[in-house]
């Protein structure tokens, strides 16, 4: 009997051993160690800021091609020439202390900050700034398109960088981009190619923190440690360590925040956020983002080719009802451009008007006594806010005798259908979010409202030569004469929303943050979505 027991246990252990063997054979023999590990100084709780993120943190460590979730880490490790301040709607100095444009916005001269060191000890100069931007342009990955206007880069002195452009563009704004605009030491890896060097979880940045640990697949995926040689210095109170924990489940993030295991949660659902607002020891903030939800109307085919039908749908939307149903998660939009960006115009207001909608439909031959109208709409699967919009619009259109077939789809499927070569398969209404890669409203217009064949993001299929011309003029106007750019944006938005009813802007998302009340000086900057600029924050009691 005894030997049998041993065999039984042995069988169970064998299962575990076989799997372990498989695991051991397939890699990972040594757990990545915390390269900054200094037990005596680095683990004090009050010095460590822990951020809970619902998705994996890092996909690409290369600052040239990075274009994913790691955007929440990179600005703490790498720096750009400028940084955007949404309160002033202007860019502010970062690695560059001054800049000026000339030649009608086609030449930009930047003066670099003195005394900036990279994490490997190298000192920033103009040649390094030029090399990193040229490498980013050459790799053509991520958001490298932002440098599309750059023809050449010159370095007349050790601290001067001159951009020569092929057409006028706001390089001061572009240089503040949250993706693709980082200045880095491409020789940080020595003989190892920079891409391979950073792929192991090392960095070539000049920011306040350096990568101490990258443990892909584990709960605490990234750890950053303070860089002693940071040009901003470490006087005053700062966090010395930063941790990014992957916590997919919102309820678990909330529990971890309450228990003090994390300092901040990137995103909670509205119900839990409401609870957080009334929880002792938890601070909250609400900030309007640069991300808005748009309904793009099919201007090329089907019943919505008729502008009267598009206007009727636009007027059927209960904009106020949607905002109040989402309980603080969103604010009403004033046109295409969100508040905080050049081009925002608070006088552009969208309101539900069912009587007007009914009249427009009757004019178009639909409604009582007329033809039956059935529309199709696609939106993102799993997005409760978009689902709510679909429900509200279905109900509003039903009152007008219009049937709406709203289909939730995964983004890829939604996008595939919208770009189908068979135009009859395309939807009548396409719902999608949009946000800028850098603080410039141009991205909405060039991507969604400029004509393009075949369609890419212009899923209203709008083709308007006058609008195209105006859109093409925006970069130069923004670079040289911002007031004229503001006027052009206003004209375009009126064309898009009022005149041609190409799209409706349903709302602007709010960032709802919940964090420990010990976290001081937290400010959301919508130009850098979800980025906690940890250096600017301070641990409190």
């Amino acid at each position, binding site marked *: 009997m005894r030997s049998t027991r041993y065999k039984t246990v042995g069988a169970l252990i064998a*299962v575990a051993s076989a799997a372990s063997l498989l695991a051991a054979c397939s890699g990972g023999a040594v757990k990545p160690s915390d390269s*900054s*590990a200094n037990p005596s100084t680095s683990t004090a709780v009050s010095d460590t800021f822990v951020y809970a993120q619902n998705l994996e943190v890092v996909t690409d460590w290369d600052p040239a091609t990075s274009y994913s979730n790691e955007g929440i880490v990179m600005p703490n490790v790498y720096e750009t020439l400028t940084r955007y301040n949404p309160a002033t709607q202007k860019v502010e100095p970062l690695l560059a202390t001054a800049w000026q444009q000339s030649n009608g916005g086609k030449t930009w001269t930047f003066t670099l900050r003195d005394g900036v060191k990279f994490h490997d000890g190298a000192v920033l100069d103009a040649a390094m700034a030029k090399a990193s931007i040229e490498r980013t342009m050459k790799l053509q990955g991520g958001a490298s398109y932002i440098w599309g206007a750059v023809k050449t880069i010159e370095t007349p002195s050790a601290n001067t960088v001159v951009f020569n452009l092929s057409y006028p563009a706001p390089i001061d704004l572009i240089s503040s981009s949250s993706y693709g605009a980082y200045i880095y030491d491409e020789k940080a890896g020595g003989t190892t190619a920079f891409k391979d060097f950073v792929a192991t979880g090392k960095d070539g940045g000049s920011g306040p923190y350096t990568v101490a640990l990258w443990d*892909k697949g584990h709960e605490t995926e990234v750890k950053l440690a303070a860089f002693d040689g940071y040009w901003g210095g470490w006087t005053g109170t700062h966090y010395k360590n930063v941790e990014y924990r992957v916590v997919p489940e919102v309820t678990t993030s909330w*529990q971890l925040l309450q228990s003090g295991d994390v300092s901040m949660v990137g995103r909670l659902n509205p119900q839990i956020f409401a609870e957080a607002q009334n929880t002792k020891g938890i601070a909250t903030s609400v900030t309007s983002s640069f991300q808005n939800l748009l309904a793009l109307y099919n201007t090329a085919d089907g019943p919505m080719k008729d502008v009267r039908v598009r206007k009727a749908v636009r007027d059927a939307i209960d904009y106020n009802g949607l905002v109040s149903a989402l309980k603080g998660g969103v604010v009403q939009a004033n046109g295409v451009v969100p508040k905080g960006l050049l081009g925002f115009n608070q006088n552009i207001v969208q309101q539900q008007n069912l009587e007007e909608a009914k009249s427009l439909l009757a004019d178009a031959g639909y409604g009582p006594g007329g033809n039956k109208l059935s529309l199709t709409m696609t939106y993102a699967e799993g997005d409760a806010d978009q689902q709510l919009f679909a429900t509200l619009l279905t109900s509003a259109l039903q009152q007008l005798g219009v049937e709406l077939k709203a289909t939730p*789809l995964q*983004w*890829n499927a939604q*996008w595939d259908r919208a770009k189908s070569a068979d135009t009859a398969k395309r939807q009548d209404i396409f719902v999608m979010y949009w946000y800028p890669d850098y603080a410039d409203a141009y991205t909405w217009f060039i991507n969604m409202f400029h004509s393009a064949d075949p369609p890419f993001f212009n899923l209203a299929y709008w083709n308007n030569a006058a609008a195209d011309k105006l859109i093409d003029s925006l970069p130069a106007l923004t670079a040289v004469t911002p007031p004229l750019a503001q006027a052009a944006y206003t004209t375009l938005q009126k064309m898009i929303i009022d005149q041609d009813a190409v799209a409706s802007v349903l709302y602007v998302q709010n960032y709802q943050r919940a964090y420990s009340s010990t976290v001081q000086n937290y400010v959301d900057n919508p130009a850098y979505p979800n980025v906690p600029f940890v250096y600017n924050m301070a641990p409190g009691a």
Partner: protein
Amino acid sequence: MGRYLVRRLAQAALVVVGVVVLTFIVVRLLPGDPAAAYAGPRASPEDLARARELLGLDKPVIAQLGMYMSGLVQGDWGTSLHTRLPVTHDLSIAFPASLELVGTALIFAVLIGIPLGLLAARFFGSPVDGAVRLGSMFAAAFPVFLLALIVQNTFATKLGWFPVAGEYDSKLDSTSPLHLYTNITIVDAFITGNWPIFLSTLHHLILPALVVAAYPIGVVTQMTRAAVSEEASLDHARLERALGFAPGQVLRRFSFRPSLNPILTLLALVFAYSLVNAFLVESIFNWPGLGNYAVASIRSLDTAAVAGVTLIVALAYVIANLLVDIAQTFIDPRVRLS
């Protein structure tokens, strides 16, 4: 035994190949473009074309399947679209973590379920039996995600007896770095004598493992009760009682061993079931196992990763069943492998 093993391994290989082919085709048939998931939402047409070529999506599905199967044979399980790392690398982290959780849960199931089943069989038909049956039915039927939330909220958040989530205290990475041999944290911590991480992992493991164990405990209890009771009603048990053995002795010494066969078979089935059932628990307790990885893979139409998860679960199921079959021959001389 040799011929039996060869036949079983051949059957297992067929099952595994079938599962992989089916998974691959089903994921490929889902609407959506994996290249778009790989290249990101703002990818240009050129980026998409590059991604399609890189991922081999520009080839027919059958050719893609052929390339995937050929890679599998050579140990290349493909590259994950969402992590951009080899699937074997991802699984080498996620699977041991799941194994750690489910293994602990099965230990709980054996240590709690079998004694409870014996207790119920010993007092068959009594209120004790009724209470055990009710408890085990409740454990097996209670929704695991709800149980996880209740347990977490009560014992971690409210009472503070256990950590809310995670595998171990990440601060220990600095103070007590862990050397990995099996990638199963608690095992590596034990064999390297890293007691801070061992104790921290144990502390973090108890709540999720108990939640995952709820179903196995329920079914093992029921199965033990049924098998032992049936064995105790046979002629040999009547003879043993007539010879003066106490009822408890009859159960422990003569009825329990022949009852182990169905219990072991059940454990093998429960093991594979629990690997998948643990996905929800892993999500709630933020356990870095297969669950989170599988969900992220499905969301991004990550065929290689989804097929990898399916393959490893299928392999675990097949190996566990094979080992149980072999173990039965040692436990019960009546069982012959043929």
